[in-house]
């Protein structure tokens, strides 16, 4: 030993007298053995990033390395558990997380009953045999995603959204309903009450595919915004390492990180205390490469054992002031395969999930369309294209209608506006609170879209045949709009479609 602390500035701690220490090694600081990680070495002097509140720690306090980098204890015991950023179990921890009173278990330490199968350094990607094409769709149960902006297993998604746009709600829905085998939910610097909600709901819900509890396929890493900031950074890496572990056992894992902006802020704060030269908006210049390396850990692979598994990463981004040009948003969208932008105007008009159809993208749609066709749904791509073009056209016309009034538009354009309304209200909106609507199967989603498209086609035929647009607009379309909440099966949706078509037929 003989190493001691020489300077403390919040989470930044400087030490001297460390012998044989390596970069990224975990050190323990002071009598309380606060965990930290070496981020710079200069001879026997080291700069350490502490993972706990350092209040009361003074120069002269002893410290020493534990001789290995920050490692995640991996094993099946992780499923169903709630952990902090260093993968220490929270369910058995005290009500108040006082570092001074925490049992002296080093980072990654566990109790005897849950012996991890192995340890793996969280910052090092786990090896695999080869990368496979990411062309198998991940079904999320959210129509706007599955129909318009799908993500493959092994894909990467950024979800930027200002506050109040329902970001966390959307991610929670995906955590609950997507058809992956393992969900790693990393709550990174977000609200404690939301975290409590996630935990309570996961414990109550059943997994529709296995009949077990939904919590049993989930690993929650909870690092709420009042928990130590630097552990956010560790939590993100711990989360992806856990997902890789399950991938290597032939599972499809999804990492949901809410929010990566808080992680970037932790990097910024530490860089600033360390006196690093700042890049954009004070973020460290290494931020883009850190983000890129993180998202590159996603992928569908053949494992060393020959099995197939995948890690999908969905990262929320919280742009300050809703500014989509700020660094974290701007960097992240370059490294991801899909972006689901959440729109403030949609959210304020209570359109949830508020995924903007004009500002989002999904770069794997062509590959996924081929897969859907091979799996017996050749109509998938056609539906997507039609929806996207109708929505775009309706948006263009809505701007025009605001200027000149709807009544001056020709009939077929008024039907496009109607189509936009029906698609938005009857397909894209989805109520997280409704038992029927919270999650939607691919078949039912397709039936809902086809119902709206069939109705729209019939309306176009009618105006083409001379029926006044006003007469059509005055029809009660609520059976179609409400089908998503009131028609639980594909057959019910089809019945509503036929009833609606018959009623429209009476107009001609």
């Amino acid at each position, binding site marked *: 030993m003989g190493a001691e602390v*020489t*300077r*403390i*500035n*919040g989470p930044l701690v400087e030490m001297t007298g460390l012998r044989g220490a390596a970069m990224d090694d975990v050190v323990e600081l*002071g*009598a309380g053995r606060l965990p930290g990680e070496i981020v710079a070495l200069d001879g026997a002097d080291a700069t350490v990033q502490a993972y706990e*509140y*350092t*209040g*009361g*720690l*003074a*120069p*002269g*306090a*002893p410290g020493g390395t534990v001789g290995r980098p920050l490692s995640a204890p991996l094993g099946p015991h992780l499923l169903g558990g*709630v952990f902090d950023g260093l993968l220490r179990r*929270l369910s058995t*921890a*005290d*009500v*108040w*997380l*006082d570092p001074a009173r925490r049992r002296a278990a080093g980072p990654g330490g566990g109790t005897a009953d849950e012996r991890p199968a192995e340890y793996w350094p969280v910052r090092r990607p786990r090896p695999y045999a080869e990368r496979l094409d990411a062309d198998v769709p991940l079904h999320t149960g959210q129509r706007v995603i599955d129909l318009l902006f799908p993500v493959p297993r092994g894909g990467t998604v950024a979800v930027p959204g200002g*506050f*109040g746009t329902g970001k966390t709600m959307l991610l929670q829905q995906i955590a609950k309903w997507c058809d992956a085998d393992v969900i790693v939910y990393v*709550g990174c*610097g977000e*609200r*404690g*009450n939301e*975290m*409590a*909600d996630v*935990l*309570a709901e996961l414990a109550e819900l059943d997994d529709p595919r296995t009949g077990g509890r939904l919590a049993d396929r989930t690993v929650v890493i*909870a690092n*709420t*915004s*009042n*928990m*130590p*900031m630097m552990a956010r950074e560790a939590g993100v890496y711990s989360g992806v390492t856990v997902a890789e572990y399950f991938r290597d056992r032939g599972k499809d894992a999804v990492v949901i990180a809410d929010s990566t902006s*808080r992680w970037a*802020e*932790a990097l*910024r*704060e530490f860089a*600033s*205390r360390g006196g690093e030269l*700042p890049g954009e*908006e*004070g973020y460290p210049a290494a931020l883009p490469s850190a983000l890129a390396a993180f998202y590159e850990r996603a992928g569908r692979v053949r494992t060393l054992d020959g099995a197939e598994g995948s890690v999908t990463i969905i990262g929320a981004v*919280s742009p*300050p*002031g809703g*500014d989509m040009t700020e660094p974290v948003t701007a960097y992240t969208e370059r490294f991801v395969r899909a972006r689901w932008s959440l729109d403030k105007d949609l959210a*304020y008009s209570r359109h949830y999930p508020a995924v903007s159809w004009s500002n989002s993208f999904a770069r794997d749609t062509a590959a996924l369309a081929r897969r859907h066709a091979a799996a017996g749904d050749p109509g998938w791509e056609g539906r997507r294209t039609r929806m996207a073009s109708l929505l775009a056209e309706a948006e263009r016309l809505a701007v025009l209608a605001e200027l000149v009034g709807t009544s001056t538009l020709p009939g077929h354009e008024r039907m496009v506006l109607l189509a936009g309304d029906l698609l938005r209200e009857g397909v894209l909106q989805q109520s997280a*609170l409704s038992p029927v609507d919270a999650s939607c199967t691919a078949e039912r989603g397709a039936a809902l879209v086809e119902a709206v498209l069939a109705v729209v086609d019939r309306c176009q035929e009618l105006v083409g045949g001379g029926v006044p647009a006003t007469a059509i607009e005055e029809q009660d379309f609520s059976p179609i709009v409400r089908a998503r909440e009131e028609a639980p099966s594909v057959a019910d949706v089809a019945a509503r479609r036929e009833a609606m078509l018959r009623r429209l037929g009476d107009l001609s």
Partner: protein
Amino acid sequence: MTERTEQAGRTEPAGRDVRAAPDRWSRPAYTRVSRIRGPLMTVPGAEGVGWDEFADIRLGTGEARHGLVLDTARDRVLVQVLEGTRVTFRGAPLRIPVGTGWLGRVCDGLGEPLDGGPPVLGADEAPVAGVPLNPVHREPPADPVLTGVSAIDALTTLARGQKLPIFSRAGLPHLELAAQIAAQASAGGEPFSVVFAALGLTHADAAAVRGTLEERSAAGDLVLLLNLADAPVIERILTPRIALTVAEHLAFEEGRHVLVVMGDMTAYCEALREVSAARGEIPARRAYPGYLYSDLASLYERCGRVRGRPGSVTLVPVLTMPGGDITHPVPDLTGYITEGQIVLSEDLHARGVYPPVEALDSLSRLMRKAAGAGRTRADHPGVAAQVLAALARARRARELGELVGTAALSETDRRYLDFERAYLRTLVAQGTAEPRSLDDTLERAWRALVVLPRRELTMLPGAAIDAHYPREER
């Protein structure tokens, strides 16, 4: 290390706090201050001083000041403070006494009595920095705190354990509203207390707040902490922490529902920026420090409920948006942490409506858990949804009316405009000293809704509509 701790044990009597310590100079005192810059000073030669320790500073005049350790190395310690000449360190981060002794007291921003009473004592003490609550032990908020303010109770119901800020701008009556909420709020007959932390208030404002809260203070339900505009910066950084430490104890140890009202949070953030700038830290947006989000979260996240314990901490921060800009870092980062927001509108204020709450811009994310059968009233969620939908429609009608003239609007649209007027007059407008029961509030909402044609009320069950509509329109 060990030696120092022993020394701390010897010289630190149990339960010591801000008020009792300044005369104890048995710890090493440092009289050399090498550098003073803004609110910061560097003390060379101080040894074994821990980070975030609390410091006592004596001026040449004998006056006492306080400081916090921001950076500590072997040979020098950076202390955040105003000027001073003789410094001692407490050997630990700041702790304060906690307990019911705080109830009914009026203190300054550091918790020193302003009411002529003795120093506040408590059986226990707690660190003002707080200790994070294990998320596994959090209980999601469920029941309401009723504020007695119709616009809030009806449309943005506050849940016990929620954090719901008031976004305002200079010149609007946010302080009156905050004080009114603090004076009227209750939790359905369960033990209820209010901690009001005034940050950076002018003397006139502080006097007005004291006046409004006099009754509650006399009843022993209130802790009032007054940090005035001319108080030292460090005090402003500590005041919210002291308020929350007191509140946490009252809630989770004494089983009370505690409402913490604090404002102006913009003044708090400016204090933080001032210190950050003096330290030469790399600034982020609008020169606020990069850790503003984390710092605010360390305050706001201290509200909530703990599984298996009675009591709750509910937080209503008040902030003025500089220039009315909601994307300014202070409201923006606050919005990312809090569970909704109550937005005050200049337009409504100009039209003489108090409280000028702009319902369409406001939101309580936890309302669906706090309102409804068994919590408030069965028809509450439906009424609130219908009022908001009608307001959105009325706003569109008003905008259209401004373009084409009200006369060109459809009959339905004109009824919506009538509704909006009735809504403002009957439901929103309220006296500053007028508490309203929930039933009164919801009946007022109904009186506004029945201005609309019955067919427009699509979000409410028929039976409820029948009960409220005038007979001739059924």
